[in-house]
């Protein structure tokens, strides 16, 4: 299998993250307008719309593609609406990319936006005794941070990570986010402030864990021929997209499950699920982790960012703490991670987040990231994971 043709990222745009108290459509339309302006096209030029769904805003959220098509003014174009929890945005990107690569359209819009409630994300209402996402709250009191904390404690035991390392991630990402006008939290933190925040799920404290936010992100994707014929000689391009699922047996407990898979009968795969996510994007694109200049990864907790260093191939297993402590993953280091400020500065707006990661890489590769610019960035990768077994990774290059 040869690498698929690149597709062009012609325009990107976001509505700033925050708690704005508006309908999610407002954020999505603002992001779309920004992306259209960035690409220099009108919404009547769009031939396909892929919307990433939100499940917290009623029916319009389940049909995000159509919701945004209608909001901009129906033009008759086909739509799709995707849901894969935190991976929803990458599923929408992939739907648009496939449509372009198949020759079915030249110009596609990808959009995701959310309005989130305050506090812990909770399951859908009602009594649903056959839904593991409901049962984990009812029977275990297991919230999302429960799972983040189990991974963090495991990392401390296996590799000697410390709470100070987790705090250092927060301090680093907070510093990055100071320069990002779309970030919700633009405030510098000291390690002492992080360690003084209350314990949410031992060993994780409040400032180790990301908030939930409102926000919206959008992008215009086109075929390379269309981009070049419209004067875009050297656009930032998507080279690989991964939406993989786990391989049985998945020996790590994934949210919202009660147990891991058993490896009593079938041997575990060579790669863990998280390691398989970006590996698939590398393999598809023919670009390896050694060529990566920067990464945007899902720091739902500060500790998870350390796992990603290894899972996206920036260092070997057990070496993430050393990589962090060396300064390599801060802006100015060898391979900056989360130059946007990451979820630490954004908080999570589920269907927008994976798209926002690619927006950031696009600005970085264009050299338009201002005070958070990673000098000379040519190749970037995103990584994220949605509950119920959704991988998400996009490989972006000049």
């Amino acid at each position, binding site marked *: 299998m040869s690498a698929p043709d690149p597709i062009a990222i012609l325009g990107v745009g976001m509505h700033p993250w925050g708690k704005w108290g508006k309908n999610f459509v407002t954020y999505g339309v603002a992001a779309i307008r920004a992306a259209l302006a960035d690409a220099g096209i009108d919404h009547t030029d769009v031939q396909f719309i892929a919307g990433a769904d939100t499940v917290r805003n009623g029916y319009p959220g389940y049909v995000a593609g159509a919701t945004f098509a209608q909001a901009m003014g129906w033009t008759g174009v086909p739509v799709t609406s995707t849901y894969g929890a935190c991976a929803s945005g990458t599923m929408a990107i992939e739907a648009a990319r496939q449509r372009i690569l198949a020759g079915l359209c030249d110009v596609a819009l990808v959009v995701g936006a959310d309005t989130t409630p305050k*506090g*812990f994300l*909770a*399951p859908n209402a009602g*009594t649903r*005794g056959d839904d*593991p996402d*409901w*049962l984990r*709250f*009812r*029977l*275990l*009191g*297991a*919230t999302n*941070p*429960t799972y983040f*904390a*189990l*991974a963090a*404690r*495991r990392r401390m*035991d296996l590799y000697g990570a410390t709470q100070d390392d987790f705090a250092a991630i927060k301090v680093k990402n907070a510093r990055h986010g100071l320069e990002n006008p779309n970030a919700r939290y633009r405030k510098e933190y000291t390690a002492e402030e992080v360690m003084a925040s*209350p*314990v*949410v*799920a*031992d*060993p*994780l404290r409040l400032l180790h864990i990301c908030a939930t936010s409102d926000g919206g992100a959008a992008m215009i994707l086109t075929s390379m021929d269309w981009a070049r014929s419209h004067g875009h000689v050297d656009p930032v391009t998507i080279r690989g997209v991964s939406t993989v699922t786990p391989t*049985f*047996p998945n*020996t790590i*407990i994934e949210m919202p499950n*009660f*147990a*891991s*898979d*058993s*490896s*009593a*009968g*079938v041997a575990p795969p060579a790669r863990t699920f998280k390691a398989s996510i970006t590996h698939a994007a590398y393999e598809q694109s023919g670009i390896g982790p050694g060529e990566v200049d920067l990464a945007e990864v899902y720091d739902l907790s500060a500790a998870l960012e350390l796992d990603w260093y290894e899972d996206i191939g920036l260092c070997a297993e057990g070496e993430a703490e050393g990589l962090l402590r060396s300064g390599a993953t801060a802006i100015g280091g060898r391979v900056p991670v989360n130059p946007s400020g990451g979820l630490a500065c954004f908080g999570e707006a589920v269907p927008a987040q994976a798209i926002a990661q690619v927006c950031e890489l696009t600005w970085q590769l264009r050299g338009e990231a201002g005070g958070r610019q990673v000098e000379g960035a040519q190749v970037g990768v995103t990584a994220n994971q949605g509950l119920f077994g959704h991988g998400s990774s996009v490989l972006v290059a000049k």
Partner: protein
Amino acid sequence: MPAVDGWFTIDDEPHLIGTRCGDTGSIFFPPERNSSRAPGHLDATLTDVPLSTRGRLWSYTNAGYQPPAPFVPQSDPYIPFCIAAVELEAEQIVILGQCPAGVTVDDLKVGMAMELVIDTLDRTEDSELLMWKWQPLGWSAP
């Protein structure tokens, strides 16, 4: 009564109930009753099996803040509880469970021996729901 049907017993020797794939020996918990989830073995038989009641602590945490509904708090004000992930050697599976009230993170260490107990999940005036929980082997409430 058990807080969930068919996942564990509350008899004299309480245990979790898993199912075993007749082809591969893979164990499923919660008990999978549709078809084997070992790829390529959709037609395999599934048999109920009791799971080991002791294992090693794989990881743990606590709930410092009261979880949202449908979690039912057992005290007002809320008192944090611990959650353990325990690895069963024979079944090669890691299973979550709360720890009984009184167990704190200071009592827990990755790798320590753990045992299954049946304990109250929540209690109303006329009923008591029971759950499996994990506690350090031989632990008793202080």
